[in-house]
């Protein structure tokens, strides 16, 4: 069973790099979005099980990462959300964890952390 992974990141290179990490994962089907609006479209349509979310998006301030997260939670309580952000305001971390973020990574961070987290999710989902 393949899981859907949505990467929401406004920086094109980072978006591609993140995708490259999971490219060869046979159990993942990858979706990408640069803006919050696009992300919500994919969320409503594809219902991804795993979401890698950047907090500052292309359509900021109209739709930032936290807004996407809040909207996601109204729609889907179970999706696993991994937040990665260049912002340093602690209030975002608190907010993300309150919304049930699986992990919160502050850029720059080692990609292995991200891959490990995804691996864990895959393992859990496969055991379940």
């Amino acid at each position, binding site marked *: 069973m393949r899981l859907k992974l949505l990467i929401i990141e406004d920086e094109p290179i*980072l978006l591609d*790099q993140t995708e*490259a990490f999971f490219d060869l994962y046979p159990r993942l089907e990858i979706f990408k979005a640069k803006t919050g609006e696009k992300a919500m479209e994919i969320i409503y349509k594809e219902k991804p099980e795993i979401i890698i979310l950047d907090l*500052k998006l292309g359509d900021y301030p109209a739709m930032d990462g936290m807004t996407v997260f809040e909207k996601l939670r109204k729609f889907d309580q179970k999706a696993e959300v991994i937040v990665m952000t*260049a912002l*340093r305001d602690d209030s975002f971390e608190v907010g993300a964890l309150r919304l049930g973020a699986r992990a919160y990574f502050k*850029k*720059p961070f080692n*990609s292995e952390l991200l891959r490990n987290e995804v691996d864990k999710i895959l393992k859990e989902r496969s055991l379940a």
Partner: protein
Amino acid sequence: MDYKIIVLFIMLILFIALWLIVFFKGQNKIVNRTFNIFVINMAIWSFGLAMFYKSSDMKASLFWTDVLYLAGSLIPAAFLLLSFVFPSEESTISHFRQILIFAPNVILFGLFFFTPIIVKEVAIVNGAKGFIYGPGHIIWDLQFDTMFTWAFIRFIKKYRHYTGLAKTRLRYVIMGTLVGVILAGVTNVIMPWFNRFELLWLGPPLTLTWLICIVYGIVKYRLMDINVALTRVGIFTIVYVFVLGIPFFAGYKYDLWQVATWIMLFLATSGPFIYLYLQRRAEDALLRDQRRYQETLRKASKGMTLIKDLNKLLKLIVHILTKTIRIVYAGIYLYDEKKEVFILKMSRGGEARNTIANISKNSPFIRCLFQIKNPVPIEDMKNINNLKNIEEDDVNEAINLARDMHATLAIPSFVEDEMLGFLVLGDKISGHSYTDDDLAVLSILTNQAALAIENAEFYERAKIAEAERIQSEKFATIGRLATSAKHEINNPLQMISWSFQHMSMVLKDTKDNYKNIRERLNETINNTKEMIAKLTQRKNVLAPDVLNSLDKISALFDRTFSILERKGADDAEFVNSINEFCAGIDNVQKELLKASEGLKDKNAKEAIEEIIHFSGSVSKNMEKARDIYNVLRSSIETGEENAKRIENQTQIMHDLPRRLDTELTAIDIDKLLEASFSFARQQTYWENLSDTPIEKHIAKGLPKIKGYFSRLLVVFLNLTMNAYQAMTDAGLKTSWDRLIKVTATVDDPTEPSFVEIHFANKGPLIPDANLERIFERGFTTKKDGSGLGLHISRIQVEINKGTIYARNINGFGPEFVIRLPIWKEGVENETKASDN
């Protein structure tokens, strides 16, 4: 009217005028009351004499004789009383004693008015109106002489005992009285003994000199030189002799009373103006020098408040004092609130070297000044009776201390009720004492100086505060910029970091290829083995060595590739396994080659050649891969390291408070130190000072400290910059010679309250005498130093409720020890709330 009577009436008027002056000065002082007794009796004596001459009736004349003699006896009694109460303002004589002094006068009163014992009758004696004395006349003389003698003895004793201003006043009194007593005594006491009464009427006028001296010396407390007083008296006498003499001469000599009256009217009106003019001219000449420097001091007072530099101001003050007043020594002491002592800040004086560097605020000298509050000649401290809670021994101790300071005069300086400091002045070079005018001008100067010093100190504090504010604002601005820049930096950093990581992944993923290689090789080896096995069934074919070697190759490949394929193999294992493989293959190839020389079968030989060729080829490729991997790995490491540095640097700037610190926060010492070093490196980069090794030893689990981040950043930045500069100035230029060592531990591991940071640098030691001085504002040993860095650092540490001091580590260099309070959980909210 007889001219004698006129003169005597004039004297009466003068005495009454003097009495009124003293009366209106106030009767609360016993000195004033005593002087009043003097003057009234002088007036009565003068009046009595006038009436004696006026009365034609002998009985009336006798009455007036009794009056004038009684008054005459009260004069020495009053003088004796004065000897008890002057120069001290408090009465030191009991009422009983006062009664005793005047008791003889009561007896004399009875003898005069009810008996003829002293004066029998009035008569014309040797052509002049005089008296016939009774047998008891000696009683009066005795009383007169005894009282005066006793009084003089007392005054002379006091003169020997007293010093300074009091001594000068006593000199006035003694000299003035002598003149008066001698002159009046001759005409009114001695000559009558010889029945010579012609000059009797001159008695009161001849005491004029005496009276005026007394007035100046006692009542007005004008500490003028006696020659000035005499000059005034002289001028006064001359002027009024003309003012009154000319008209009377005209009247008596030429009987031109009408003309005389007009002349007197004119001269009497212009008399005061003539007197004042002559007095001013005379005193200008006498007091030229004094007035000159008093004017200089007044001008200096006004200009002082314009000087903002405290040191310059203090130098100016002592310079003006020593040069203008021409004194031996001048020193300024200012109060240090923290140490609670008065410190000698500036002094000037040729031979007089004041060794008293500081005086405690509780010392008797300071306590005396605090109560006196006005300029005080040192020797006069003994004469001041209203000093509360200060014993005589303390006063003596104060005087001794003042002598050690070479002080003749001390002038305290107050701002409201706080004593800011005091001036000490030595003797005048001329040997003259300080006059009242001097004290008045010096008082003005000192008060102006106090304001100017306050001004300068405030200016310096403001400068420091402004410097701190600017520095804090700089850090805050950097912090704010860093916050907004941080986001823009972090994404590119992420991209760079992930690029390296991706390369690393790609390199490692090459390991999958190894599996293919191994499988292929194993297949070849197995085929070769089968072939050889078939061959061994025939005779003389198989060499056991060949099989051995083939097994070795196989084993080598297995071992190496199982490592390479393994996920999680680290770089060292990866490289080492390749190295071992290459070395191993080389050896086995040689063995196999040798072993296969004996093989005769062509197919077997070809198969072995293929294995040798293949394994050799793999080995070469592995070597290449290893080399490429090493280069890439090194680049990745460098890239990751630099990305980390950028991240650290921006994080340091990001961690700066975005606004000026207004509340205490929990601060990580390591972060604080790193920020300081980072800024120091940036500032010294172009000077090549940044290449200084720093050894940091932070105790494990060191708790955070409580403080204002940017303020403490200033402290450690200052220390780092000072260390850099000190090492450079000492000629320590290379990274082998330079070293900064920082350790941070808690004060008590079981119950920690403070974190103690030891900040040391290699280099020359600080002289012991300067270990504390380096924290003083303005102190510097650098040519272009401001002397503010360590001073500000100490202020900042103390604002953070910590302490800082310096010491030397022998064989290494100077060390600063900083103690800062620990941030304690549980009291945070309390602290913040109380701060708020």
